[in-house]
């Protein structure tokens, strides 16, 4: 039944992606991210939106694995952290320009993910989830001991490196715009994958992997490609993010709570939808900010976040957008 649903939805929609309203809704959202902080030069708003953009990048890439293919990547933060390390190292030592370093980080991490994906994606369900935790922890333990990258103490960048971007103040704006661009690409990537044949194959894997394989979906290749494709943009985002902080250390870069937050965001918004992770990320960022600043809850931030996640998992397993779709089926045509 569920497979039928997918195919009718695809048929009912206009042929090209440009004719769909949701394509333009994404464009509007990106424009809002670009314009909002420039009004009144609001640095505080920019920082909060920057964090939201990072969450959206992580969550919507993760969503391709979780929501489409049904594989829970618990250690997705390893892409972000490794991308950050490669970029900071390339900018700091050989003195590459930021754009080249961040792109190189993305390409290398994506290639590593492809190689790794072929091995790790032989596993299914909880076994895969555990293996991804193992990969993240293994990489973290390795970096902690890897002296060219500063070991456990991490690496610093000198603020002089901001000079090519027009000084520290201007550099922060540039990095913000770059991150918003990566966010836009992430949203369009997950949208593009969903409407493509590749995405249909991933959705089929998510429904029933063996049946998909019998019907001719090259499951191993598709899974590894999805794993690798969703590593690319988070790695670039990691590079930009850690270049901005001018400091990176293993315990932050490979922090498992960050990747579980991304899972929580995907669940909150609605797995398998494109708007879901974005809306989930926005709500999560707002909630986190509120909990951290509130007098009553600042000590119990984790408790409240945990209780909230439990309530979603128990009573709203399809997330906000998923529940709205079930309630108003026509909404699927506008918000996908």
């Amino acid at each position, binding site marked *: 039944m569920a497979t039928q649903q997918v195919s009718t939805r695809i048929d009912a929609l206009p042929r090209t992606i440009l004719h769909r309203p949701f394509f333009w809704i994404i464009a509007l959202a990106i424009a809002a991210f670009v314009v909002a902080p420039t009004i009144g030069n609001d640095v505080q708003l920019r920082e909060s939106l920057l964090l939201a953009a990072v969450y959206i990048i992580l969550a919507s890439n993760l969503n391709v694995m979780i929501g489409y293919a049904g594989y829970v990547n618990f250690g997705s933060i390893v892409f972000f952290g490794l991308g950050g390390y490669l970029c900071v190292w390339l900018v700091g030592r050989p003195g590459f320009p930021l754009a080249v370093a961040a792109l190189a980080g993305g390409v290398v991490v994506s290639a590593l993910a492809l190689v790794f994906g072929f091995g790790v994606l032989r596993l299914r*369900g*909880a076994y895969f*989830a*555990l*293996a991804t935790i*193992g990969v993240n922890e293994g990489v973290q333990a390795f970096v902690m001991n890897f002296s060219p990258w500063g070991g456990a103490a991490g690496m610093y960048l000198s603020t002089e490196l901001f000079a090519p971007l027009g000084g520290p103040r201007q550099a922060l704006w540039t990095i913000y715009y770059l991150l918003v661009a990566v966010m836009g690409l992430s949203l369009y990537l997950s949208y593009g994958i969903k409407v493509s044949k590749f995405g249909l194959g991933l959705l089929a894997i998510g429904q029933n992997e063996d049946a998909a394989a019998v019907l001719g979906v090259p499951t191993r290749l598709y899974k590894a490609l999805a794993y690798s494709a969703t590593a690319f943009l988070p790695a670039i985002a990691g590079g930009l993010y850690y270049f901005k902080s001018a400091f990176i250390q293993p315990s932050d870069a490979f922090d498992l709570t960050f990747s579980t937050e991304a899972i929580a965001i995907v669940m909150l918004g609605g797995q398998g939808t494109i708007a879901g992770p974005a809306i989930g990320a926005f709500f999560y960022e707002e909630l986190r900010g509120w909990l951290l600043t509130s007098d009553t809850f600042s000590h*119990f931030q984790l408790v409240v976040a*945990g209780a909230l996640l439990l309530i979603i998992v128990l009573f709203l397993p399809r997330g906000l957008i998923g529940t709205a779709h079930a309630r108003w089926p026509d909404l699927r045509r506008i918000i996908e």
Partner: protein
Amino acid sequence: MFGIIASIIDGVLVGSVYGLAAMGLTLIWGVMDVVNLTHGSLIVAGMFALYLLTDATGLSPYAALPAIVVGGFAVGLFLYWIAVHRMIGRPPLMSLLSTFSVNLVLVGLGTAVWGTGLFNVPVSLPGLTLQRFTFPGTHILAAVLAGVLAGCLYAFLYGTRLGKAIRAVANNRGAAELVGIPTTRVLSFAFALGAALACVSGMLIATLFPFTVLSGDAYQLKSFVVIVLGGFGNPAGALFGGIALGLVEGLATPFMPVSWILVIEFGLFVAVLVARPGGVFALRRT
């Protein structure tokens, strides 16, 4: 040469405690296909229970064992009904997330109450000295207790009616239901038993090493490594897995800095998981 052997023996002693810790996790996994991510917090709960009990009563730490078993069992029952019961039979993502969120709540409460400082429970036991090397008494006693408890669990699973029911539910829940086994009650009992094992292992670890509220994650990851080595859902294998892990640690310690051992452990973990997803000592399930 004797130094290496001593290091290996000590590794095996500590490893058997890791084995006990993993036993609770693998029992729950095997019986209900739930990866219990509250495992780490339960281990920490055992540590702090021991700390509070010895601090309040001044009794020997080992006298606290029965109280911790009972307490862990009660906590396990509570957690089962809150977070796990509705997840039985649903995709693994759901139970991973529900137990993860409970874990967040527990860790949050722990840090709010105790902070993240270092705690330890002073235990004085005479060690065993061979040539220049002394094996701490706490390590020996912890290993013995872990072995005894593993034996008890084995006897329970294979020698009692309830144990048989647990194995039946693990094998085929539907069929167990058909022959009249109250599966829900058996599942909640098995979960509580797993939780009690985690608490007891936490208590034993607390007698060996200092700990913080956040120690749980590290021991939970170790438990996963042990499970992979010992075979999924196989409590007896977990003890061997723990001993194997202890052996690796003991063997590696004299040759490399301690921080590299983690790299080896996780490399081993991923490699074994990919090469033999059922675990090294996996029993063939019929």
